[in-house]
């Protein structure tokens, strides 16, 4: 046993050394943050832009707008024709996409190195000159596409509506996390061209964005290009800083959804703390000990031993404004969800009362360490992570610091943090097959 421990100590020192990336950050006159990371192993370069705006900044009655706007960013700008953005990146053999969360919107492409200047040209044109190319016809088309995205991902998906349902239970109507990122159909129908223009002028300015370039490029040449294409874009209005509003559950809440599904599903959610809280890493470890892999506590009890659940997962959803831990259990056919709920709660109580073992903690730490390395294998993975650290913490090169948050966790901290959040009121959403309301948790 001792030998194993020694081995891991060496391993951990080694890992820390490996996650030190060489990163350079500077800021243009218009406020655009630029972050460069060279990695010449393959002739590719990743261009990754984050705008610090997500669905949390939307107005009520205009839900889904941040994401609909993301779609509009691919529809051409003043100097890039309709759908030419896709065409040019695919012609370069690159890949591209964008995504929207509650807190931010990102746009990214990985292209062969010789196309870096083109990628910067494309990104800068839509950052600075989107509106002249905007038309009602394009908006109507993408509105239909997004409504189809909602149908595909939410309405036509078994259990697809459970996440928006549980968010209604967790957050008051005016809390920015009350509504889903994809938005509601009627709000998507109501979005106007003026909304597009207003959103762009509020949030899509260089001073609310950060540009990461990672991969095989010439640093000096790249800096000249960045200035050439982004330097001339005018600075926008100051964007309001996001305020943390940690939601709380006053009492246990239960709700049930009857759906066209075969198996009943239970979702439990506990309020925790925002992303930047010092407890965040510990909550990650708790999620791993509860449901990460076959030997985790809930999997072992519910799926392996009692065999009353088909699967179980736990997820620390720590977002910028408010955090929560979700536990999702898929019951076996006709399984009573209240019984599942009782077992989950008793496992949590056990964890709070008796703490965890050294091996459980070490296992969780080892997997975080390994994943920390696995995620930086690709330049696109690195670029996105650099932008996440920069956008939320203002520190692009936080890889080592992030890893240390986990390595320094002490065994008695885990049940302390668990008792702080997981013994408080929770919300529980049951999704049951049509006509099987008797299976619900209460």
């Amino acid at each position, binding site marked *: 046993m001792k030998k194993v421990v020694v081995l891991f100590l*060496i*391993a951990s020192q*080694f*890992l820390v050394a*490996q996650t030190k990336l060489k990163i350079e950050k500077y800021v243009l*006159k218009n406020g655009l943050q630029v972050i460069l990371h060279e990695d010449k*192993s*393959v*002739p*590719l370069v990743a261009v990754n832009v984050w705008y610090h705006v997500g669905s949390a900044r939307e107005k009520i009655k205009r839900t889904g707008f941040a994401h609909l706007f993301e779609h509009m960013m691919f529809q051409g700008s003043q100097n890039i024709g309709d759908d030419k953005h*896709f*065409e040019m990146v*695919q*012609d*370069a*053999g*690159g*890949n591209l996409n964008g995504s929207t969360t509650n807190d931010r919107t990102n746009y990214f492409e*990985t292209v*062969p190195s*010789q196309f870096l*200047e083109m990628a*910067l*040209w494309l990104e800068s*044109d839509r950052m600075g*000159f989107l509106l002249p190319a905007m038309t009602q016809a394009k908006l*109507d*088309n993408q509105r*239909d*596409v997004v409504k*189809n995205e909602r*149908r*595909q991902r939410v*309405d036509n998906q*078994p259990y697809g509506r459970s996440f928006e349902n549980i968010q209604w239970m967790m957050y008051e109507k005016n809390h920015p996390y009350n509504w889903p990122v994809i938005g509601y159909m009627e709000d998507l129908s109501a979005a106007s061209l003026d909304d597009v223009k207003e959103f762009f002028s509020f949030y899509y300015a260089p001073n609310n964005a950060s540009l990461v370039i990672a991969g*095989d490029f010439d640093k000096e040449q790249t800096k000249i290009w960045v200035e050439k294409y982004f330097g*001339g874009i005018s600075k926008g209005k100051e964007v309001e800083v996001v305020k943390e509003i940690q939601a709380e559950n006053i009492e246990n809440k239960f709700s049930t959804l009857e759906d066209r*599904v*075969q198996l009943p599903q239970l979702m439990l959610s506990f309020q925790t703390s925002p992303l930047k809280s010092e407890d965040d890493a510990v909550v990650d470890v708790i999620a791993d000990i509860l449901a990460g*892999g*076959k*030997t985790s506590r809930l999997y072992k009890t519910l799926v392996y031993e009692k*065999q009353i659940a*088909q699967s179980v997962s736990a997820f620390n959803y720590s977002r910028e404004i408010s955090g929560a831990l979700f536990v999702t259990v*898929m019951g*076996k*056919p006709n399984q009573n969800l209240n019984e599942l709920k009782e077992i989950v709660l008793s496992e949590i109580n056990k964890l709070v009362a008796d703490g965890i073992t050294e*091996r459980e903690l*070490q*296992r969780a730490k*080892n*997997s975080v*360490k*390994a*994943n920390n*390395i*696995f995620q*930086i*294998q*690709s330049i696109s993975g690195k670029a996105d992570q650099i932008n996440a650290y920069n956008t939320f913490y203002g520190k692009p090169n936080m890889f080592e610091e992030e890893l240390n948050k986990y390595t320094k966790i002490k065994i008695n901290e885990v049940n302390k943090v668990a008792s702080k959040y997981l013994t408080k009121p929770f919300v529980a959403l049951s999704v049951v097959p049509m006509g099987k309301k008797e299976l619900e948790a209460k």
Partner: protein
Amino acid sequence: MKKVLILLFVVFNFLNSQVLDRSLKPQTLATPKLKLPVMQKAKLNNGLQIILVEHHELPVVQMQMVLNCGLLQENISGVANLTANMLDEGTTKRTALEIADDISFLGSNININSSNDASFATVLTIKENLESTFEIFSDIILHPTFPEKEWDRIKKQQLASLQQQKDMPAFVASNIFSKTLFGDEHPYGRNSSGTIESVNKITIDDLKNYYKENYLPNQSTLIIVGDVKIEEVQKLVNKYLGKWENGIAKSFTISQTPTIESTKIILIDKPQAAQSEIRVGHIGVARNNEDFFALTLLNTILGGQFTSRINMNLRESKGYTYGARSGFAMNKYPGAFTISAPVKSSVTDSSLIEIMKEFNLIISENVTEKELQLAKNSIIRSLPQGFETPSQIASQISNLVVNNLPDDYYNTLVEKYSAISMEEILRVGKKYLSPNKSAIVIVGDLPLIKESIAKLNFGNIIVADSDGNKIK
């Protein structure tokens, strides 16, 4: 002083915006050379092939064991994947929980699954834990015990997940589409998870037999990519896989595939579905087809990427869908050619019209020079993206192993794709695609869509249940 500075900045910005003509697309620099990975090969006495690519960028090792067995070798539908599932449920040395605990303690990942033609065991570990991970991996592959108690649990889990699959319209559509093309007997027509009926029939001995007959070193290749040298690899494979006993692979037969004489439509009801899941197509070609490159280009233009005809039409022009595509499943034997799209229920018929229009057009007129160039560029220039991470490199090599391709395959691609002409695309389209001999499968809200589809007169309509059985 300050004032001067500010002025200068204004001038600079002014100049900048004057000089820069944003309408000009930047020039592209010369294409840098991509160095393809060097494969080092070895063979153990028991016949196991080893392919190593040294990749020292990060302290990571990726391994992929390619086993020459898949759904093709099954006697009962579901056996291949259930065998793979059972390997880490107990060995002569470890219980199911001990295996899981040992792997997760190392922070390593091990996954095993089966496809039509082959099975894959993939391993990802940090270099420091390579030997410990390798030992567990070899234990799973060489010494599984298939405990009855664990089988009982896995079987119930599989049955419940098969029940769950019926909730997913996309899954039901694909499943019934394959079944319609290949019939019940052909392995390519099967659900890789089996059916409720077949899984109920499977016994632990079926799995043990499948394992014994197919998990053979002389039928397998171990691909290793990462921060490791050939000497270390030799030591590891000899120590942990050297005693793996070889055997003779059993032969198998492929049943005849039914042909579709004229287009038929299979409708499956999904009450109140928000979308209709559409699948259109027929049996296509095998991977070793001589027209592979022309067909790949054809598909890239028709529905293989975002800017393809089908997606641009159904999504960007009409707004019927979030995404539509087409693809060839090219396996050892001919697999399916499929056009697929989830569309808004009320435009199911209009979507089908557009799909058939594109399907017919690609075999009746030349594609444009511009389309062909875009397809060639996107394939040729994306080559480096396949060789960035150890896992990508391992997949590329795995492609060579599974499909018996030569070592220099990736070096020949540029030349092969470049040589294809517009006329070639039309020729292979006419040769291999037949829109009027297709199966059309739609899972959706039938009371809403059935009548309008019947009016199209595209073919005979059959209404089936979610298992694909005809409803009278």
